[in-house]
């Protein structure tokens, strides 16, 4: 009954309401808390981030503003609720409310529709559904990965989240925003915004409260799409920063603390990403010569920048863009390169060995650099690197140091992200080439579709890593991770 007496003590200090409370909504808060719990457990497993004790925050914020009467009503409510949750699912009212939520909160019509889909009435039911699916057509030896997520906008957990995060979450979920850099920056900016807007409850100081406040947001982001390793690094960094603020003595005023955090974030983005990219381009340029035939795979913002810069500074070279279904990210890269007047060849991954013949260099992007020197990147990267190294073609990986993570992995299956399997099915109905052979694959008992997002390239396939701190062998990743992160933090404090 911890929650209940909690609600007592917290409600002593009634602070200004964030949103109008209604009977329906108060019910939702319970379910929300439940949801948050669940999330945290999953999070706890998947990434070791210590996330217990936070769930109350959901409740706390929502229960701030209650009169005693309401509180009494609430407690009765709770009892009832416990019972019928034992019985089955959720009270329908909650669901209805949740849908209203969805409509009111989120502008985009698409979301409205997803909200109405039976898939996501409420966390519990959803989990059921997922289990079902798993049993049917999930790949057994990948059952440890959580299946492709649907933006669960309907679940009423969202109501007390900052709208910016919701918007961001949706962009992630629908792969509107891809590429680890883009996602990281976006996430940090959003957090910055949250921090700016956050008003701590009168009892807690900002610096003590902010972290608790952020956690459900992070949880939400995790819930819509698994975070890339680099994002987790960022969050880890952010938490460290926050804890430092707390330790600050004499304690900072809310204002200064807030500003300091925001500054730090901006500084981080600038130093570790934007400036870093510029440096990487500079460093990479050393390795580009006239007459090169450079092969690249999928699309990496840094690599793109590098190639464009090389063209701008007048190098004569050809680019081979290798691409793969279902994402066809390379097509976008190709478009940019071509319009920049670079002479390009475009092939699919399957025919890489044919084009490899006259390639002189391979330049790849990375999502993260693991501590064992392996590169965690877009699925297919490993293949390209392997093919190139087989043919003794140097393989360069462009990677900012903030993507160096303290984690090791020897195969691509332990940690990965599952995409929506239906992406593999060709939609085009009017062309006859076998496309329809999979259209209703879910009905075929023995047939499974697997759409992984990342793979791990062993260090043996990689010649060097281009970072903002220079060209390094990928085996010295741990050094960078330890040294540079330290030094950066120092740098920040010095500033």
């Amino acid at each position: 009954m911890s929650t209940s007496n909690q609600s007592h003590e917290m409600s002593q200090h009634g602070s200004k309401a964030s949103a109008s409370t209604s009977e329906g909504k108060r019910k939702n808060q319970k379910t929300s808390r439940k949801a948050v719990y669940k999330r945290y457990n999953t999070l706890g497993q998947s990434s070791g981030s210590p996330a217990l004790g936070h769930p109350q925050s959901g409740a706390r914020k929502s229960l701030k503003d209650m009169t005693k009467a309401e509180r009494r009503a609430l407690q009765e409510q709770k009892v009832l609720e416990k019972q019928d949750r034992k019985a089955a699912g959720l009270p329908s009212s909650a669901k209805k409310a949740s849908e209203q939520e969805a409509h009111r909160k989120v502008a985009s019509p698409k979301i409205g529709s997803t909200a109405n889909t039976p898939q996501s009435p409420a966390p519990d039911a959803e989990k059921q559904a997922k289990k079902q699916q798993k049993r049917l057509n999930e790949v057994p030896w990948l059952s440890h990965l959580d299946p492709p997520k649907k933006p669960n906008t309907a679940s009423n957990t969202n109501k007390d989240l900052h709208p910016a995060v919701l918007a961001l979450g949706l962009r992630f979920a629908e792969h509107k925003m891809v590429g680890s850099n883009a996602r990281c920056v976006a996430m940090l900016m959003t957090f910055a915004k949250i921090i700016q807007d956050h008003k701590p409850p009168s009892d807690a100081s900002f610096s003590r409260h902010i972290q608790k406040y952020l956690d459900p947001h992070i949880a939400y982001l995790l819930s819509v799409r698994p975070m890339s390793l680099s994002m987790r690094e960022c969050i880890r960094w952010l938490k460290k920063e926050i804890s430092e603020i707390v330790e600050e003595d004499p304690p900072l005023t809310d204002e200064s603390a807030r500003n300091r955090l925001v500054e730090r974030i901006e500084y981080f983005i600038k130093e570790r990403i934007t400036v870093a990219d510029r440096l990487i381009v500079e460093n990479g340029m050393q390795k580009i010569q006239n007459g090169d035939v450079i092969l690249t795979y999928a699309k990496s913002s840094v690599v793109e920048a590098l190639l464009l810069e090389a063209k701008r500074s007048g190098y004569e070279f050809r680019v081979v863009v290798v691409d793969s279904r279902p994402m066809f990210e390379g097509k976008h890269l190709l478009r940019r390169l071509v319009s920049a007047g670079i002479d390009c060849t475009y092939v699919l991954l399957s025919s890489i060995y044919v084009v490899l013949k006259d390639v002189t260099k391979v330049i790849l992007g990375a999502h993260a650099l693991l501590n064992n020197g392996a590169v965690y990147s877009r699925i297919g990267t490993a293949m390209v690197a392997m093919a190139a190294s087989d043919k003794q073609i140097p393989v360069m990986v462009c990677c900012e140091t903030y993507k160096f993570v303290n984690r090791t992995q020897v195969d691509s299956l332990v940690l990965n992200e599952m995409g929506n399997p239906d992406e593999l099915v060709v939609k085009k109905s009017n062309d006859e080439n076998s496309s329809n052979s999979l259209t209703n694959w879910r009905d075929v008992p023995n047939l499974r579709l697997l759409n992984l997002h990342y793979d791990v390239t062993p260090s043996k396939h990689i010649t060097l890593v281009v970072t903002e701190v220079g060209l390094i062998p990928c085996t010295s990743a741990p050094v960078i991770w330890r040294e540079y992160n330290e030094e950066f933090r120092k740098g920040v404090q010095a500033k």
Partner: protein
Amino acid sequence: MVLSKALEAHVESFISRLKRRQIVGSYEVAKETAIILRQVVSTTRWSDATVLIQIIKDLGRRLSAAQPKELAVGNIVRRVLKIIKEVVRGELETDDIMNSGTSEESDDGFSDDDEEDNEEDSDREFKSILAQDTNDNADHTNDAIPARPKLQTESSMFNLLVDQHSDNVDYSAKSYGMKPLIIQEINEEIIADLETVYKGIADQALEHIHANEVIMTIGYSRTVKDFLTKAALKRNFQVIVAETSPTLQGQEMAAALAAVGIETTVITDSAVYAVMSRVNKVVIGAHAVLANGGLVAVTGSQMVAAAAKHHATPVLVCTALYKLSPLFPYDIDLFNVCVTPDQVLSFSEGTLIDKADVQNPYYDFVAPEFVNLFVHNLGSAPPSYVYRLINDNYDSEDTIL
């Protein structure tokens, strides 16, 4: 042209279908080639073997010129040539000439209508042949190899020393019993072989697949499909299929396998390396196998084979003997064919395709060192032994048609 009008017509249509790639897949091609050649033997008039050989060589040149990448054509032609020579050398026991002979006569009757009739009526006589040696068919094919004498024609080196001019037996000797015999040989050695190809390979499945294996394959190959299907009857195992973009044959394959109840997982080509760590055998088909043990296969095969090598996963290649070609990969690109890039990058991307150069090679060359074993319809062999099989099947003189 020495060919009869009807036959000429048949040849023409075959050639144009080859050129337009309306007939693809080495099996179909091989079979039709064999049938055409048999007709040549039966319908054209030739006084002695030299003439016949010349005719067949010329025709062979025409056919393989029509679609140089379809090596099966040349292979069948070489097989036929070899058979003729053997027959002439009288190395083949002359049994039941009569019945097959007569059946051929009837064939001549039909031979002036298009190949449907022909196929079915040839089918009819395969039936008869298979009927007459169903029981010994398997071992007949098995001992076919040792049965065939080799030492005669292989090496000019050898002829240096033996005093008889074995390589120029005068084929010009008038020989009347030959025609039906040759035809019968073609039926048994080649066409019947073709009939039994898939079975022959599938039968060995259990020797290569153990229980609970995870097998990866790529592309759609009927040979591989039958192979796995057969194995699935006795053992249960999973198959992982790379979807093989852009043709997506892999998806077809997956659907087919799942249909016969094999646990099948479709992955993107890009996931091959990532998933390979789970795989403990790779089984792929081939479009053609070259004399050095390298093979021409659907695009992506090399990628799979290489990934397998890095994971020390054995690679099996299921291929019928008629896909063995005595040619060598003089140039890797030589046997590849680039089809329309439309599937890679849609033509409607007007402004883009105008500037960028889009490639869509249809085949891939897999070097011999990536292959562990060839499973062919008469057994299995390591790449280093392929040249031997080739010497058994073809006469080294005919390597260049």
